[in-house]
């Protein structure tokens, strides 16, 4: 059976079996009832050499087409400095386990501490955990956290303007966990404030989930919302797009109690949907209600500053069914992506990224709306780098044309006549001009057809 991943020679196996007092490898399975033992080989192909493995995946890759992304909706095509990938590929980080043995895991523990610090700064909150799976599950965890913190309430409200992809996950968790989830209505692209106030005033709401920016890219004004929530003993949960916090008012500044979202926009490749990293930040007084791992600073026997997993008694391996969450493995390595990215970018880099996105998006919005059939879905509503436009033609047909002619994914169709578009720093003015040109030709072509 000589194979590159198995160091055992025939002699080794014989001698080791001898130590065990067994005659064959099959004997090691004598405790499994005979009728339960698998008696055939797997119906899978035989192993491939590395040359063949590369060919196999290269051939699959031909079924893919990487595009210029004018689409966001929860995943953003941002630039990631080459240093990021270089650092996260180091096998000392990659091939280590959860840092339970702190003495030989200071590398992991220290970057998680840096990650927590940076996420707290970015969201304007006091504390952060070590990471969650993604933005959707982080939001669901925040919902359960609000219910746990409220003790005697199990109703949570979610705004209709939260990304439906996030809402779907939150709904699933609510259904099984026994949380009563109600929707706050939408009014002209933003959360209906009167509906919010009426529902919170019922004094039975544990938490309210809103989005910043919301699904349509609109930056909603939450002035006074936190105070209103707190007056009714309700927690305010904000789902954010991480990178936008470089310029937008933070959950901390809005007075929110829990900030959640996906950290993918901070240097993580799109990777067809994962792995990403969910963040969950909150106030110090809610730290014990927080799900997942937390790294804290302490000293070792010699008095040296060190880092260690702390408050573990909240977690599943100790608290079992009473734990704050069932999360165990999180997205540690993805937190390293975010940490190295933010270290390199700093506050100025994050600002520049947002400026480029804002400029591109507003330019595209303006140019598209000059074309026949295009108009802003929510005119006069402020947005950063994502926005909804109405198009009174066949959106899918238009998207296909852009795909074929420009190699562009023209946004996401979110309703029969509405398109959600997004621009990041990876899209140049030339790219945008080409898109507008193709759209122009398309709309004029439609005229000719008529």
């Amino acid at each position, binding site marked *: 059976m000589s194979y590159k991943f198995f160091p055992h020679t025939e002699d080794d196996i014989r001698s080791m079996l001898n130590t065990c007092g067994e005659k064959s490898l099959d004997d090691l399975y004598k405790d499994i009832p005979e009728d339960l033992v698998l008696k055939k080989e797997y119906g899978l192909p035989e192993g491939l050499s590395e040359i063949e493995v590369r060919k196999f995946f290269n051939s699959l890759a031909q079924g893919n087409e990487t595009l210029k992304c004018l689409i966001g909706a929860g995943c953003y095509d941002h630039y990631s400095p080459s240093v990021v990938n270089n650092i996260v590929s180091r096998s000392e980080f990659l091939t280590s386990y959860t840092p339970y043995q702190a003495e030989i895991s200071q590398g992991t523990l220290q970057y998680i501490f840096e990650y927590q610090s940076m996420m707290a700064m970015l969201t304007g909150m006091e504390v952060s955990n070590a990471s969650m799976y993604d933005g959707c599950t982080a939001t669901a965890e925040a919902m359960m956290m609000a219910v746990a913190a409220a003790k005697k309430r199990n109703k949570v409200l979610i705004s209709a303007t939260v990304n439906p992809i996030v809402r779907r996950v939150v709904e699933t968790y609510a259904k099984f966990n026994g949380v009563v989830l109600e929707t706050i209505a939408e009014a002209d692209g933003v959360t209906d404030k009167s509906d919010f106030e009426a529902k919170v005033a019922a004094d039975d709401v544990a938490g309210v989930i809103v989005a910043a920016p919301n699904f349509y890219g609109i930056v909603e004004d939450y002035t006074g919302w936190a105070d209103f929530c707190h007056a009714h003993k309700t927690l305010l949960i904000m789902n954010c797009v991480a990178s936008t916090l470089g310029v937008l008012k933070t959950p901390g500044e809005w007075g929110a109690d829990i900030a959640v979202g996906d950290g993918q926009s901070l240097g993580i490749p799109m990777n067809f949907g994962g792995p990403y990293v969910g963040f969950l930040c909150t106030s110090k007084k809610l730290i*014990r209600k927080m799900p997942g791992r937390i790294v804290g600073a302490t000293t070792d026997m010699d008095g040296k500053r060190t880092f260690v997993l702390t408050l573990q*008694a909240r977690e599943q391996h100790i608290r079992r069914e009473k734990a704050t969450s069932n999360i165990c493995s999180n997205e540690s390595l993805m937190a390293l992506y975010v940490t190295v990215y933010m270290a390199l970018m700093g506050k100025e880099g994050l600002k520049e990224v947002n400026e480029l996105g804002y400029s591109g998006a507003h330019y595209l919005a303006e140019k598209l709306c000059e074309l026949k059939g295009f108009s802003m879905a929510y005119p006069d509503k402020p947005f950063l780098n994502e926005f909804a436009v109405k198009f009174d033609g066949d959106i899918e047909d238009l998207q296909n044309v852009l795909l074929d002619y420009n190699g562009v994914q023209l946004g996401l169709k979110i309703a029969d006549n509405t398109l959600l578009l997004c621009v990041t720093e990876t899209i140049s003015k030339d790219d945008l001009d080409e898109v507008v040109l193709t759209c122009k030709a398309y709309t004029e072509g439609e005229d000719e057809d008529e």
Partner: protein
Amino acid sequence: MGNTKLKTTTMSKIIEGYYYSESHEYVKVEGNIGFVGITDHAQHELGNVVYVDMPEVDDEVNAGEEFGAVESVKAASDLFSPVSGTVVEVNEALDDEPGLVNKDAYENWIMKVEMSDASELENLMDAAAYKAFIGE
């Protein structure tokens, strides 16, 4: 307290006149008020207490039911109320300094309960019975 694992055997303090539960809580009775905490034996088993999760004033507690938890670094144990009644006070000093439970578990009670049924005390152990129970 729930599944406290017995790791070490150290002689622990037991006070005469208090009532004890099998889950290692005690009640000191003054009139119809019960001072509830964890026993010295329990704090020994837990090690350094780093957090005490306490109920809120006016909460109703029932004998045998959970009312909070104590955490050390590597363990957590639920607290079960030995008596039924209404919480009239919680020991807020434990919020800032949970280690007080280790210093003196009897001085540093966790909650005061206005008992609704004093006959429940008869279901608890006295000092001698508790001493036998923990095998000392």
